[in-house]
């Protein structure tokens, strides 16, 4: 088999989201339009303007089922979320967690990205102790908790991974970028399986910078479930989220050879950057690069824009939402009245930053697998610039057994873009 013929499928999923842990809970929350956004007292006490956010619930109650006391001793929230997502994806793909004496699995790697990483460890432990002259009191766990690759490095040890193990970082594009990179590695013949996705902790030190930029919605502290409002006329900034979404990507023949369940095929993907030109900047996307990225993913998948049945957008609830939808329309070469279904998982879980792409890829694949498109809540007052697209916006969950092809894109600070096309495997 030539490398060009190597096809990549998804054989496992792991999800730890603010509105559900595990595939059953998460699917149920998506279908029901259940928000995971809550008010958090510590944000109010610290004078955050935005006092709501998405945090996976009750993790301390079950993290011990995944991780030993010794492992947890050296892990922050970002690492714990990544590990739970990866172990769940691993088991969902039909594998057992290996014991300490097995040989490394040379054919399986991990590309688990993060946007910010272990800033809670830096802020709460490293900085204060070093500044107080207590370097010796840091103990042994600082480096593994603050190194950018800490989340994937821990997973390698838990699962005996022997192929490439690394952490990518491209801000809000991180998770989607990881999936595109992981799939490419398999297509290139360099790995048989890659755990790919993203994780982000819930540290208020992460969220503080966005709060100071005034890009978070500060108008719904008393109504958390209504706070994340992508595509809405009353959108007033995104809501920070956290968690992990991880996919087990696998070469098709390997998956078929071991009789694995195949959720979907990764048909193609693309990554690029707008170079902070033509309207692009550190914080805004170059529209040409967004369109080129979507077109690049279509070309890589070998399909036309008319074959896209649904879009799981980036759609964060900032001023950029109408621009994004217009970019989709141009890139797919489909008029507003002819657009595929469009929706935002962030309306339910907030914007999980480095985890967003991973979580939203999991959502997209569950939608393909079960044949539905989840409702994008909180945009009943559709943004006036999106009126022409009103027929495509999914407000309430619809059953759609014919759903075959879904496009997922992420656009991040730095003017970076990622788009991946999933198709139901048949």
């Amino acid at each position, binding site marked *: 088999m030539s490398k060009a013929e190597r096809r990549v499928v998804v054989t496992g999923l792991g999800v730890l989201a603010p509105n559900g842990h595990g595939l059953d809970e998460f699917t149920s929350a998506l279908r029901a339009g259940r928000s995971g956004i809550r008010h958090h007292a510590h944000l109010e006490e610290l004078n955050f303007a935005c006092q709501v956010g998405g945090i996976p619930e009750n993790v301390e109650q079950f993290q011990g089922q995944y991780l030993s*006391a*010794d492992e947890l*001793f050296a892990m922050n929230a970002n690492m714990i979320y990544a590990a739970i997502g990866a172990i769940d994806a691993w088991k969902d793909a039909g594998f057992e967690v290996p014991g300490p004496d097995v040989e490394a699995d040379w054919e399986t790697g991990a590309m688990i990205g993060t946007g910010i990483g272990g800033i809670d460890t830096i802020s709460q432990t490293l900085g204060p102790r070093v500044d107080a002259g207590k370097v010796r009191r840091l103990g*042994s*766990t600082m480096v593994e908790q603050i190194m950018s690759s800490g989340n994937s490095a821990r997973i390698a040890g838990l699962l005996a991974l022997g192929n490439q193990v690394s952490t990518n970082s491209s801000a809000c594009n991180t998770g989607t970028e990881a999936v595109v990179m992981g799939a490419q590695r398999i297509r290139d013949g360099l790995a048989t399986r890659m755990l790919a996705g993203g994780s982000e902790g819930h540290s208020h030190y992460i969220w503080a910078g966005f709060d100071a930029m005034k890009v978070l919605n500060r108008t719904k502290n008393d109504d958390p479930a209504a706070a994340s409002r992508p595509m809405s006329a009353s959108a007033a900034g995104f809501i920070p989220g956290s968690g992990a979404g991880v996919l087990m990507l696998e070469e098709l023949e390997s998956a078929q050879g071991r009789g694995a369940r195949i959720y979907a095929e990764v048909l193609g993907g693309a990554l690029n950057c707008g170079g902070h030109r033509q309207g692009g900047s550190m914080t805004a996307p170059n529209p040409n690069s967004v369109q080129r990225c979507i077109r690049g993913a279509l070309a890589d998948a070998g399909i036309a824009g008319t074959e896209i049945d649904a879009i799981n957008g980036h759609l964060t609830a900032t001023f950029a939402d109408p621009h994004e939808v217009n970019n989709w329309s141009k890139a797919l070469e489909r008029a507003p009245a002819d657009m595929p279904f469009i929706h935002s998982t962030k309306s339910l879980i907030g914007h999980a930053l480095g985890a967003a792409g991973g979580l939203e890829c999991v959502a997209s694949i569950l939608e393909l697998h079960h044949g539905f498109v989840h409702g994008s809540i909180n945009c009943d007052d559709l943004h006036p610039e999106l009126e022409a697209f009103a027929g495509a916006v999914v407000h309430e969950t619809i059953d759609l057994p014919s759903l075959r092809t879904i496009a997922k894109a992420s656009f991040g600070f730095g003017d970076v873009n990622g788009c991946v096309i999933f198709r139901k495997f048949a």
Partner: protein
Amino acid sequence: MENQDVFDKVVEILKPFAKNEEALGNISLETSLQKDLEVNSARLVDIVLEIEDSFDIEVSDDDADGVNTVGDAVKLIVAATS
């Protein structure tokens, strides 16, 4: 402090770091932290910090380097607290 009390507290400190449950179940003064309990060598500095906090003592780097067994830790603590 009685040696038995020190031993019991040291065992509690070691529990989260011990990877070999069987060795932990049969723990004695002769038990080696790394060979028997399979404590990650990097975590020895964390165990020393826990000992310092629990017994309100300071352990020099040289003394810490000499701790190989549970008995070494107990002996060091008893000497520092008596």
